[in-house]
């Protein structure tokens, strides 16, 4: 009878253990499954701020720590880079880019989630005061460097692209020899300007100012440009364009501005050649002694 009683007690104890284990297992699974929700709730993505307070109040400190560690481990698993725990406890990931290794907290793919988190910072800023938890200011302090790191990563990517472009341009320049500056159209423009200056000096200048025919010529060039083969204008990357790119100005705007600047330069060159040819022909005519007005 006693053994029967003992057996029953043992059986009951085992049941308790198994049920406790089951509960613990369920709790663990629940935590793992709902880690994202928890993170969002802690970061303040929920609509009501009261929920955050309740969460903060309801969760004991050790639970909060658990969720933080779970989130960190979850986030680190999600990043494609190799997770690496640094000395200060923050999780970083090692990325390989163009053969060089650099360590950053998150890869460029996680920018969206980072942006969301950054947007939620403002919401959390108010909640943290209410919460009065020592952990929240630490999180806020971590988020500010995250933004800076995100900006740094984007700038780094741009700098690497620029570097590769410069290297390719340099090799292309060494191979090509840089002889593409004098295109057919450019030569045509310059010769046309010189010839027009001569014609204007001989025939036109008694009737008109000398700059009027030049303007007409430029208008004609604008129309004729499409009939000439367009030389491949590589985007010449100089220190100025690199500085403008890194300062955040879009590449399209820079290219458009450089194109406009190039066209203005061409017109200026035409004007200089035209004026020089006019003065030169005038002085030669005066020297020779030809009787022309």
């Amino acid at each position, binding site marked *: 009878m006693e053994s029967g009683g003992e057996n029953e007690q043992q059986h009951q104890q085992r049941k308790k253990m198994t049920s406790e284990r089951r509960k613990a297992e369920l709790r663990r699974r629940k935590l793992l499954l709902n880690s994202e929700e928890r993170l969002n709730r802690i970061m303040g993505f929920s609509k009501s701020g009261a929920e955050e307070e309740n969460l903060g109040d309801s969760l004991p400190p050790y639970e909060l720590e658990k969720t933080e560690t779970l989130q960190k481990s979850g986030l680190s698993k999600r990043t494609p880079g190799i997770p690496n725990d640094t000395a200060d406890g923050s999780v970083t990931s090692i990325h390989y880019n163009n053969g060089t290794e650099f360590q950053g907290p998150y890869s460029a793919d996680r920018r969206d989630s980072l942006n969301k988190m950054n947007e939620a910072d403002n919401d959390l800023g108010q909640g943290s005061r209410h919460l009065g938890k020592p952990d929240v200011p630490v999180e806020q302090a971590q988020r500010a460097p995250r933004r800076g790191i995100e900006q740094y990563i984007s700038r780094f990517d741009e700098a690497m692209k620029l570097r590769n472009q410069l290297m390719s341009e340099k090799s292309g320049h060494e191979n090509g020899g840089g002889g593409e*500056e004098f295109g057919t159209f450019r030569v045509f423009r310059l010769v046309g300007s010189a010839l027009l200056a001569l014609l204007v000096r001989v025939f036109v200048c008694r009737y008109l*100012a000398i*700059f009027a025919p030049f303007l007409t010529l430029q208008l004609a060039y604008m129309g004729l440009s499409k009939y000439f083969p367009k030389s491949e204008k590589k985007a010449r990357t100089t220190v100025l364009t690199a500085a403008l790119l890194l300062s955040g100005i879009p590449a399209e705007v820079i290219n458009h501005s450089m194109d406009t600047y190039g066209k203005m330069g061409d017109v200026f060159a035409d004007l*200089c*050649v035209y004026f*020089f040819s006019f*003065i030169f022909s*005038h002085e030669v005519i005066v020297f020779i002694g030809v009787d022309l007005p």
Partner: protein
Amino acid sequence: MAESYAWLLVLGSVLLCSLFKMLLPTLSSLMAKLLQKDGETELQMRIEIGNMKQELTMISMMDEFARYARLERKINKMTDKLKTHVKTRTAQLAKIKWVVNIAFYIVQAVLMISLILKYYSEPVAMLPRKWMAPLERMVAFPTGIEGGVGITCWLLVCNKVVAVALQPFG
């Protein structure tokens, strides 16, 4: 009024400066060769290193290790000496280039400033006023004489034209 050949003088000066600028690297290397007289030492060192390396290949390391090691040490010492020599030579060459460039730019600046001062109030060429409309004032700057071509405008035009003309040869 304008001197007859002022425009030609300015054009000639600009052309001369541009031609000189193109020949600057050649001039620098010529000056370096004149000033650096120990070019033969370097050549001798290179030949010696080559001979020693050839000798090294003929020595078996296993059989004559001491001799091999001694020769290798000699080669390394000579190579280091040659490296230092080349370093000082290139540093000297860079200095000479820098000095030549600076001197050229000073001469060019002095020439341009003297031309501007000479023709500050005098146009380099004279033309009928109506030909220059509506830019007569800009073209005549700083003389203020309508119909005249000022030194600044003519310098600008000459610089551009000479640069375009010499671009294929650059």
